């Protein structure tokens, strides 16, 4: 296992920070295994067909409930067991297949995809990742059929992004041989009807101290859930509070080891995030379709509005950004499947990129359709409301920018530290170069597989990587460990890295496509790739050039001022 891990190529974002593009490991763009692809194709088609006949998203939104019949039918279709291994009655979907399912589901109904995600991506995930064979045999078959709907219970009133502040406890009761769970969890999706909860709590007592993951079943004494919350969007999902009062959990229902709780929670969320990015891609495609439909039908000044530049710009941008985010998601999922690994930084970046792309796409859609976008009887407003949560849950986009970027900075910061030491020791030029080790220190080159037709885009990308990685070294040299607290800078590095990663994915995808079917049949993708890369490169340079600006000082001062005054600080007269 260890050897295998060593043999893996570095995560693709690492190279972007180091200025060295690992062009071999991300080309060709990972294809799905043909058998797996066909199963995924058929599953998506079956869901689509079922949804055409049975899904009333307007009603789900209005009633604030996914009807029991819909949940049951999703179970009958086998979709609720997509990622459960075949030996436990599931379909054993890989990451790409699952992302494709979530994408299609989110495209049709965001509530439904969040219901599925809460059940499979995160609810059952601790069991899938860390459950022992007995636990898996006991619970997973029910999970696969949908009889046992799952939920993931981590967030608490005082513990959101800061999971360590968790107050739910699991006290070991030696006399009874059980853990006693006490505490409250909030905003738990599927809270009203889930049968199995993966609950995180801090264990105390003879069986160990530290965070643990516990299985709690509905019906256990002392467990209860509150009413469903009324939300801005994804109103069909049942989001509730959970209360645990001396809920007794047998040691057999501890997932993994006591002390591993945060690790399990984090790993669960890391893998769950990618499918969220995929769902957002689906949402973006649906919005784009609605916007184009309107723009090609709506006539003003005797012209369809798609002929006007300001509408064209929006539609084109929506399509290109969707292509960028889709490419990033499926490059990531493909690498995860191909190399049997996790890519937490990339998955987080995909969640940020996907959710922000969707938010921008849905906003543009509402703008393109004009007044009807604001009317309740049209679906646009629901898309807008549904899209907003994606920037918040499963790790806020701020937290993901921070955590991913700090992780990706580890390698370059080792190199910079070594270089600074070498400088101090008065080593010559050769020594310095050696000390820089991992950092290229020279211009990044265009990947060899980029074909002539998109050579310009390849150069744009290489130049952006060069500028970005040089800035990474510069920032690390100046701040060293203090970088941990430099959120203005980290935010810009994150945004640069996210754009670079998407550019890399787009280049790999379009180059693979051109190699497979030729330029002529790749014309649409070449256009999308050009549009995406041109803008993304500008964004990267923008972040790099303004990595620290006087505005940062103003922001600090203004935020202080606002904190003190508690309101807008400048009366007009």
């Amino acid at each position, binding site marked *: 296992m260890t050897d295998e891990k060593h043999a893996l190529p570095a995560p693709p974002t690492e190279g972007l920070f180091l200025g060295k593009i690992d062009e071999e490991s991300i080309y060709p763009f990972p294809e799905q295994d043909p*058998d797996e692809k*066909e*199963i995924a*194709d*058929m*599953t998506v*088609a*079956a869901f689509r*067909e*079922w949804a055409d006949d049975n899904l009333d998203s307007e009603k789900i939104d209005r009633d604030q409930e996914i009807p029991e019949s819909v949940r049951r039918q999703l179970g*009958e*279709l*086998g*979709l609720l*067991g*997509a990622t459960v291994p*075949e030996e436990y009655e599931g*379909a054993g979907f890989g990451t790409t297949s699952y992302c494709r399912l979530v994408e299609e589901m989110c495209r049709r109904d965001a509530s439904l995809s969040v219901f599925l995600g809460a059940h499979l991506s995160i609810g059952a995930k601790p069991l899938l990742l860390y459950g022992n064979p007995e636990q898996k045999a006991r619970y997973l078959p029910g999970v696969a059929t949908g009889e046992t709907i799952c939920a993931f219970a981590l967030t608490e009133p005082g513990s959101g992004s800061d999971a360590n502040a968790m107050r739910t406890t699991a006290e070991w009761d030696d006399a009874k041989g059980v853990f006693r769970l006490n505490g409250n969890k909030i905003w738990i999706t599927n809270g009203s009807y889930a049968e199995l909860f993966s609950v995180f709590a801090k264990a105390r007592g003879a069986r160990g101290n530290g965070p643990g993951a516990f299985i709690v079943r509905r019906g256990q004494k002392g467990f209860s859930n509150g009413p469903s919350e009324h939300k801005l969007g994804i109103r069909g999902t049942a989001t509730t509070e959970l209360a645990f009062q001396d809920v007794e959990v047998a040691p057999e229902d501890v997932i993994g080891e006591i002390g591993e709780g945060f690790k399990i929670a984090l790993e669960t969320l890391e893998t769950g995030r990618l499918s969220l990015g995929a769902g957002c891609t689906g949402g973006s495609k649906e919005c784009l379709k609605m916007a184009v439909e309107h723009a090609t039908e709506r006539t003003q000044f005797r012209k369809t509005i798609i002929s006007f530049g300001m509408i064209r710009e929006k539609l084109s941008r929506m399509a290109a950004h969707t292509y960028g985010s889709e490419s990033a998601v499926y490059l990531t999922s493909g690498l995860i499947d191909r190399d049997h690994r996790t890519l937490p930084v990339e998955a987080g970046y995909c969640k940020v990129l996907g959710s922000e792309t969707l938010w921008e796409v849905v906003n543009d859609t509402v703008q393109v359709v004009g007044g009807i976008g604001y009317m309740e009887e049209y679906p646009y407003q629901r898309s807008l409301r549904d899209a907003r949560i994606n920037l918040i849950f499963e790790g806020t986009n701020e937290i993901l920018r921070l955590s991913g970027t700090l992780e990706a900075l580890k390698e370059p910061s080792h190199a910079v530290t070594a270089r600074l030491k070498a400088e101090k020791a008065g080593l010559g030029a050769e020594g310095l170069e050696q000390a820089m080790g991992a950092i290229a220190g020279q211009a990044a080159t265009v990947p060899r597989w980029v074909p002539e037709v998109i050579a310009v885009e390849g150069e744009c990308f290489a130049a952006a990587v060069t500028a970005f990685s040089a800035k990474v070294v510069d920032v690390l040299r100046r701040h060293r460990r203090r970088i941990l607290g430099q959120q203005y800078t980290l935010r810009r590095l994150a945004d640069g890295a996210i754009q670079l990663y998407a550019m890399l994915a787009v280049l790999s995808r379009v180059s693979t496509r051109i190699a497979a079917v030729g330029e002529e*049949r790749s014309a649409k993708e070449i256009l999308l790739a050009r549009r995406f890369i041109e803008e993304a490169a500008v964004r990267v340079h923008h972040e790099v050039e303004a990595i620290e600006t006087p505005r940062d000082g103003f922001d600090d001062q203004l935020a202080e001022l606002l904190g003190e005054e508690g309101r807008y600080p400048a009366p007009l007269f």
Partner: protein
Amino acid sequence: MKILVCIKQVPDKDARLVLDDAGRGIVQADLNWEVNESDRYAVETGLRLKQTLGQGEVVVCTLGPDRARKALNTALAMGADRGIHLSDPDYRGGDPMTVARVLAAVARSEQAELVLCGTRSDDEGYGQTPILLAGLLDRPAVFLTMGVEVQDGSLKVIRELEAGRQEESIVPLPAVLAIQSGIYEVRYTSLKGIMAAKRKKVTQPTPTELGLSSDQIGGTGQRIEVLSMAPPEAGGHCEFIEADKPDVAARELVEKLRREAKVI
């Protein structure tokens, strides 16, 4: 009872069709394909009959290139037991008669008691194959079948007539039925069914194995020659119905749709 269901893979309904350079066919690259709609009802009918009888085998068969395997897999995922993929290049091209010859050979070699087809394909739409097939097999055929059940070793069949009328008849086995779309709910393929389909057997008999010579089938055997295809000409006719009250307007609209447009 052994039931043979003949299905066809056609471009999906939302596909944007483009004529090829010769103007005699459509450009097939980059199209999405699906099982012809009425053929899905044929598969569903076969599966229901097997379910009701509690025994039997549903064999699903398609003629087409490699991509058509997907259509078979869809039928297998719905619950058909086994597949026959007529993928040999010699089968390709042709007209309804050459297709019917191949299907007849399959029906004979399978000794299928009942052959089910959809009424017509959503792409070429000849609507001839099931009838030609029955003729070649010298079996009774029913077109536009709305319902079927097995009764004392024969079939009780309901056939659609004009204007919503129906005809009920007894058809002896073996027989060929062309199934109409929309007669009941076609089951959804479940993920379990999709996984199971991968393990089901699909054979690819050659023309020789079916006892067919190349001049009977495919492009060589075809008699109908397509000269050209053309998209429908754009055009339309708009008429405003003037009436004081909505119910009067509605009545007039219904009348016009029935008498003039003949669409209801």
